[in-house]
């Protein structure tokens, strides 16, 4: 054994952690608090039929606009339907549109943005010009126009969200890819003869995706609010399917006497948004360390 390698073993006898500058950083607690909140919403949505005390569509006109009681914890709406049961069932469509309405554009935008940044040249030019065109329109007007053309419903809402919201993801990831692309470990991956696709996937992408993960939770809130806004305008989820935004809109005429009809769905949306914000902020703090 050479002198060199015995020296190496001696050097390695001291714990390597002592020398390494960076410690593995723990996720901040707020991420877990947020995750708990969001998990609660997801559980409610999944087990809605088991949890809800009434059928959300069952009308009882005689009992319309009842105040909260032991029978109806949150009272009844203008058609005598149980508000609590409607809130619980509404979480199904709201969470679905929230998650998919953020995930689909995130996937499309991340792929396009990463390819644009990594390949550069005309590919970059074409993708980014398309994104300029999309961004030049006022977001909501474009979504409303698209949903109007495609017809109301979950599918057309998701299509509209995806066609528009990918732009933000593409820009985010592209900027990061441009930064990471010039780092030495990417040069090292190139030097060892890896294929461009693999370099992008294993070396560039994992190191570029941090900002996207920070943005994603707030975009889920955005998609849920977007759905609520569309429903408010009558372009979202159609009656009688319960949906938080539609419930807020429906409760408006009664805001003076039955104030809870709009307020409680509003608070439910806020709670969901809070959970996701905690996750997003926590991830941001974590990636900065």
């Amino acid at each position, binding site marked *: 054994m*050479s*002198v*060199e*390698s015995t*020296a*190496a*073993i001696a*050097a*390695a006898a001291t714990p*390597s*952690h002592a*020398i*390494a*500058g*960076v*410690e*593995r950083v723990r996720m901040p607690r707020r991420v877990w608090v947020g995750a708990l909140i969001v998990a609660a919403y997801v559980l409610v949505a999944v087990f809605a039929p088991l949890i809800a005390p009434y059928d959300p569509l069952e009308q009882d006109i005689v009992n319309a606009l009842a105040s909260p009681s032991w029978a109806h914890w949150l009272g009844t709406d203008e058609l005598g339907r149980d508000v609590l049961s409607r809130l619980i069932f509404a979480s199904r469509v709201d969470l679905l549109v929230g998650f998919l309405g953020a995930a689909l554009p995130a996937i499309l935008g991340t792929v396009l943005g990463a390819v644009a940044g990594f390949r*550069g040249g005309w590919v970059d030019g074409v993708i980014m010009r398309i994104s300029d065109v999309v961004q030049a329109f006022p977001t909501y007007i474009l979504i409303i126009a698209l949903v109007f053309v495609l017809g109301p419903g979950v599918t057309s809402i998701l299509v509209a969200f995806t066609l528009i919201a990918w732009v933000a993801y593409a820009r985010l990831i592209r900027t990061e890819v441009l930064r990471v*692309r*010039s*780092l*030495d*470990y990417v*040069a*090292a*991956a*190139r*030097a*060892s*003869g*890896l294929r461009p696709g*693999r370099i992008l996937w*294993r*070396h560039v992408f*994992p*190191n570029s995706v941090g900002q996207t993960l920070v943005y994603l939770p707030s975009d889920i809130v955005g998609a849920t609010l977007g759905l609520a806004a569309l429903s408010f305008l009558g372009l979202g989820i159609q009656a009688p399917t319960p949906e938080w935004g539609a419930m807020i809109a429906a409760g408006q005429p009664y805001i003076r006497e039955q104030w809870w009809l709009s307020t409680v769905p509003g608070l439910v949306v806020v709670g969901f948004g809070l959970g996701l914000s905690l996750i997003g902020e926590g991830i941001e703090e974590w990636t900065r360390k």
Partner: protein
Amino acid sequence: MDEEMSRTVLSVDDLHVQLTLGGRTLSPVDGVSFHVAAGESLGIVGESGSGKSLSLRAVLGLLPSGGESDGSIRFAFERGEISGDVEQVRGHGVAMVFQEPMTALNPTMRAGDLIAEAVRVRSGLSRRAAKARVIELMASVGIPDPARRARMWPHELSGGLRQRVMIAAALATEPELLLCDEPTTALDVTIQDQILGLLRRLREERGMSMVFVSHDLAVVAEVCDRVAVMYAGRIVETGPVDEVLRSPRHPYTAALLASAPSFQGGGGALATIPGSPPDPREFPSGCRFAARCAFARDDCRQAPYTLAGDEHRATACIHPEVLMEASA
């Protein structure tokens, strides 16, 4: 063996690198030629900004964005000659070791996975076979307890171990030519010695050729057979390391030697080279070192650049005799 030694693994002729930064075009590498024989180790020495690292990166087409190279780069491997297509030699004959083991290892990949990836580029081994090969490679570069370290993330490893991981990943493709870009600059002195020893040993064991870029003549002296000294984008002197160190023929080499602690006996004050390297945006005509040279004469500022000499020993100085007079 003699026949083998005569094969030139890498020959670079009249290499130019142009960098476009903010609308201005610089030529940080301005007509560099060098060659490396099979089994030989060439050092390229110069200050930061001399163009040494860019020259090395240009060999594998790894210039930063905005960078373009021009000139002839030819490889001659056991499998044949290749020129013009770097894709064919990356991971397939040539490998590279980078300066900063912190930034040159992907922080999102475990050490073992990183090496395994390089192993699989060429061999097409199964995942499991690659794993065994990774442990073997890690052991061969002196990483103790390789099985455990293979599962570690780069930030959990010390600087020295990181550099060994990078070397293992470079060796994974079984290169005939290893390019080293200041592989020990970021390490402390004892670790630096270990890595240099490792590179020397690996070169002997594998008969690899090497190009070793460094700002430190002492480091180059330890691992290289020949040296090329670069200044302001050009090679100013070449020759066998020991001869160049003993009797430099370019005042820049001499000044570099005088300012290196390793070559100064005793504890006297170190000499510094007055002034600073010329701005690559406006290189002076004639000898680019003339403005800082203690021996400069009028004709130095007009002298066209040529490396005068032979394969063995050459200098760009038109008055190399001044150094002999000075030392006499």
